[in-house]
């Protein structure tokens, strides 16, 4: 048997250590590269609808206390506009900053909000990664996961490989259950699908007044439970604050006065959030909470999962923010995000 001399042992150990470091570095580089790739897919998906005309059918699902609900919508996208028609008569036409809604009162031009330009990047808060391939509406796409700090995914996207168009979006609860989903069941992309979306000519829309800061008597921190304040705007009956965390968005509408609980829409449920009485709703578009605090009536809407929403409402209702958030608010407050 040949005995290795000490120098040989040290050299071997050094080589082994170098190999381990090289492999680990390579794996880390791969992870970073994948995260950047995933973030780029999400960013590009935001603009893909503007670059590709298509028509299709999509299924919208959402969960309430009564179980899972489902609705089908027809989507037409072309000429820089998107038309969405639900089988039960609801209709939305979006022309970028102008959006029109058809409900029981006929067509309404929604208030035009200030442009939300300075939204945080998709990986501002969430860890992004690709997770293999998936087929949606007979099209091959890449799965992108946005993951919580505990490793549980909060959102699963499927991005079309050929065009970058978003084919499916699942919002996932803390236990991995799908809380809300939009998924194409059929889609026709390309030259043959060129379509003209009817624009609501003659409809008038009011513009919300952009605000550089929250008016006296209103309250909106620059950062809130991981969300960044993007725009502030004054409406005839209140002030709207729009937040984004790069993946999810939230609107907080504030009105001065006392909440008339008896006049709120039916279908909600009462709950306590941060020791505050809250009326909550689970709608196809997102979760909603209404409550009053310090002379304000607050209505918060978000497409985020329920645990993220509860954290946000709790922070607003209790007005308790971390020291870090207060410092960021103090520093960014004068400059504003909107």
């Amino acid at each position, binding site marked *: 048997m040949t005995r290795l001399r000490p120098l040989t042992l040290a050299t071997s150990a050094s080589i082994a250590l170098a190999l381990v470091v090289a492999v680990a570095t390579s794996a880390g580089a791969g992870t970073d590269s994948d995260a950047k790739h995933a973030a780029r897919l999400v960013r590009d998906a*935001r603009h893909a*609808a503007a670059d590709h005309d298509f028509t299709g059918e*999509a299924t*919208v699902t959402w969960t309430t206390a009564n179980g899972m609900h489902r*609705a089908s*919508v027809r*989507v037409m*996208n072309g000429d820089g506009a*998107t038309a*969405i*028609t*639900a*089988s*039960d*008569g*609801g209709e*939305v036409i*979006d022309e970028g*900053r102008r*959006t029109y*809604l*058809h*409900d029981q*009162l*006929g067509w309404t*031009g929604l*208030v035009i*909000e200030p*442009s*939300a330009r300075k939204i945080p990047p998709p990986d501002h808060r969430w860890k992004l990664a690709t997770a293999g391939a998936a087929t949606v509406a007979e099209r091959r796409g890449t799965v992108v996961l946005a993951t919580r700090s505990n490793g549980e995914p909060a959102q699963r996207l499927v991005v079309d490989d050929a065009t970058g*168009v*978003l084919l499916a*979006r699942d919002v996932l609860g803390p236990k991995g259950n799908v809380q809300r989903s*939009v998924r194409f069941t059929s889609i026709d992309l390309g030259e043959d699908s060129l379509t003209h979306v009817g624009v609501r000519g*003659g409809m*008038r829309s009011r513009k919300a007044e952009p605000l550089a800061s929250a008016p006296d008597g209103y309250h909106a921190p620059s950062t809130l439970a991981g969300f960044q304040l*993007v725009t502030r705007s004054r*409406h*005839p*009956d209140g002030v*709207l604050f729009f937040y984004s965390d790069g993946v999810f*968005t*939230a*609107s907080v*509408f504030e009105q001065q*006065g*006392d*909440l008339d609980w008896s*006049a*709120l829409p039916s279908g909600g449920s009462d709950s306590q959030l941060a020791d505050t009485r809250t009326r909550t*709703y689970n*709608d*196809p*578009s*997102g979760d*909603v909470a*209404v409550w009053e605090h310090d*002379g304000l*009536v607050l209505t918060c809407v978000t*497409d985020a999962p329920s645990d993220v929403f509860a954290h946000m409402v709790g922070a607003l209702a209790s007005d308790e923010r971390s020291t870090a958030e207060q410092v960021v608010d103090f520093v960014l407050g004068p400059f504003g995000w909107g």
Partner: protein
Amino acid sequence: MNDVLSAYLDGELSDAERAEVEAQLERSAEWRTELAEVRAARDALRGIPSRDAPEGFWDAVFARVEADDDVVVPITAARSDRRRRWGWVAASAAAVAAVVAVIVVPHRNEVTPNVTAVIAQHGAQGSDSGDPVTVLAPVGPLAGFRR
């Protein structure tokens, strides 16, 4: 038209009248525009901010009323004409103070947020910063859902 639409928004029409108005709204862009303006005017009225009374105002009013009560109460008892006159003056002053308080000092208003409108507005704003299809697709069923 304005009165009819105002009654329509207030839910004061009969089923038949309501159906007639909705049919007219479907047919006429002019009616829809008028409805939007009536609704905007109502929203604007509801949006007028209210303010609390200045600090100490109500204490002063109550103190004044209590002081007046001291004078008013003896009206039911045997008293001199002079005291009776003072009682009427005090009662009148208290009534005027109460009316002025109601008219001049706005009370806090009760607010009922339009939850559906806030949701739709959120979708519209979100479509400006995210994928418009997946952001707005859920708003379509919501609009029909409220029928």
